[in-house]
């Protein structure tokens, strides 16, 4: 079995989905490395799983906290969060949007 292979076309699609844009040099390097990594993970598909092996989410069974009680505890400094914005109008986070309608809503 040969490893999955990412062609330049498929790669370009991935880049768009990932909300990235790359220089030709970056693309060349990253696509090569991706294909090397896919070769390395090819092994996975060849592993025979023992009967009834379940997916593991954290390795061990987490002995975690139970869900929290329903209490309203306001964060003391919401203004500090807005102040982190690259751009805001003092009330809202602001993003450019010159082509309304061209965007996927979800």
């Amino acid at each position, binding site marked *: 079995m040969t490893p999955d292979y990412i062609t330049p076309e498929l790669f370009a699609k991935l880049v768009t*989905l990932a*909300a990235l844009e790359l220089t030709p040099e970056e693309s060349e390097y990253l696509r090569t490395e991706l294909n090397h990594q896919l070769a390395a993970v090819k092994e996975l598909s060849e592993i025979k799983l023992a009967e009834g092996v379940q997916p593991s*989410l*954290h390795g061990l069974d*987490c002995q*975690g*906290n*139970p*869900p*929290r*009680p*329903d*209490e*309203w*505890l*306001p*964060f003391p400094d*919401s203004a500090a*969060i*807005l102040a*982190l914005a690259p751009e805001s*109008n003092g*009330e*809202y*986070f*602001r*993003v*450019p*949007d*010159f082509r*309304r309608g061209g965007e*996927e*809503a*979800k």
Partner: protein
Amino acid sequence: MKTYEIVIGLETHIQLNTASKIFCSCKADSWGAPPNTNICPVCSGLPGVLPVLNAEAVRKGALLAAAMHAEINPISYFDRKNYFYPDLPKGYQITQFDEPIGKGGYMDLRMPDGSERRVRIHKLHLEEDAGKTKIDRGERLVDFNRCGVPLVEMVTEPDLRSGEEAAQYLTQLRQLLRWIGVSEADMERGHLRCDANVSIREAGSSMLNTKTEIKNVNSIDAVRQAISEEAKRQIDAVEAGQRIESYTLDWDADTGTLRKMRSKETEADYRYFREPDLLPVVLTAAEIAAVQNSLPELPLARRARFIQDYQLSAYDAEILTSERGLSDYYEESVQLCGGAAKLVSNWMMNDLIRLMNDTGKSAAELRLRPADLAEIIQLVEGGKINPATGKSLLARVEAGAGKASQIVADEGLGLIADEDTLRQQIAAILEESPSEMQNFRAGKESLLGWFVGQVMRRTGGKADPKRTRELLLELLRQ
């Protein structure tokens, strides 16, 4: 022309009325809050912070599942739904994908023609709400206050057949949500939001054709209208030999028109996977039983019981079970009135509901409690006050004037029960009206009413009308 059947499935988003958000301790409802003031590092997607599940959101989700007769999942999971949008600060929404809190179930609707329809529920899951964006002069402004508000997304099977049925579903769902106390279900405030999937088929066919999805149908009228519009558009298109395409449509409530948002042909890949920051939601058999036991009697069952046990008309039962607080009020009052179900129903249907409308309060919010209502009813029935006084007492007690019996005593509103006093009053009137007395004795018995009126005027309405009548007859016939 062929006849068509409309096939509708509804996807509702229900805002749970918890105190805090689903994964952080910000206030759940931001109504009236300035933008970006009800936020914290968790709900605004800052790096490094982690979601912590609100136990009450789980309980309310499970309670809703129980009310929908759904199977409550003993182990459900949260997943990440990955996509980019500025109102989604983490770049993924935490939601439940393949193992939601509730599976299956149904809701029985009663239709205006008296028939019932069972709408099956496909799936019911917990998730977090996204923020809000608005466009202002070429810029998008983003408010994260709504991020992390606990939602239940509930999807029906395509079991509805008209805009009117869809409207009934929403109306009765809204009633149910308030009834079991999981949501304020105020559509104007976005507590209950609805998307509708609409397709058509030839009557008698059972196939499902390409559907369109109408977004933002956020009032009962909008649901009725938008679905009717869209069904008409699809029928016209098919009649004209066109193919229905899988669109997403936006309902513009202001103009009452549908606007195409985008083609849905290429379904986005959200790359769902288990949310590693949260543990599975485990509900033990005992916890599930506790949820199911805490489920109150639902509106349809209570309505039937009112008709059966209290001999109410369907109409009265309908009104008195429209809201849980009102129906509880009714039952408590009946009990305090010794089971006088019809009598209490009359008082509530005529006077109490008017009082609620006048004050803008729900039954539960009234200062006039069932004990007060029962007291007033019993004062009237016992001949202590006349009905008009009783009705005016409702508003007085509501306004905080005190207990009804106390007001009656303090203000001397009670009927003249002392027979001697009443006899003296009547004798005086007869003395002042010799000609009327003569006419009566000559056979003009219709004058009795006139005499009663005179007694009432003289006693300021405090004479017991029944006893007055009896005494008048006795004295006139002497």
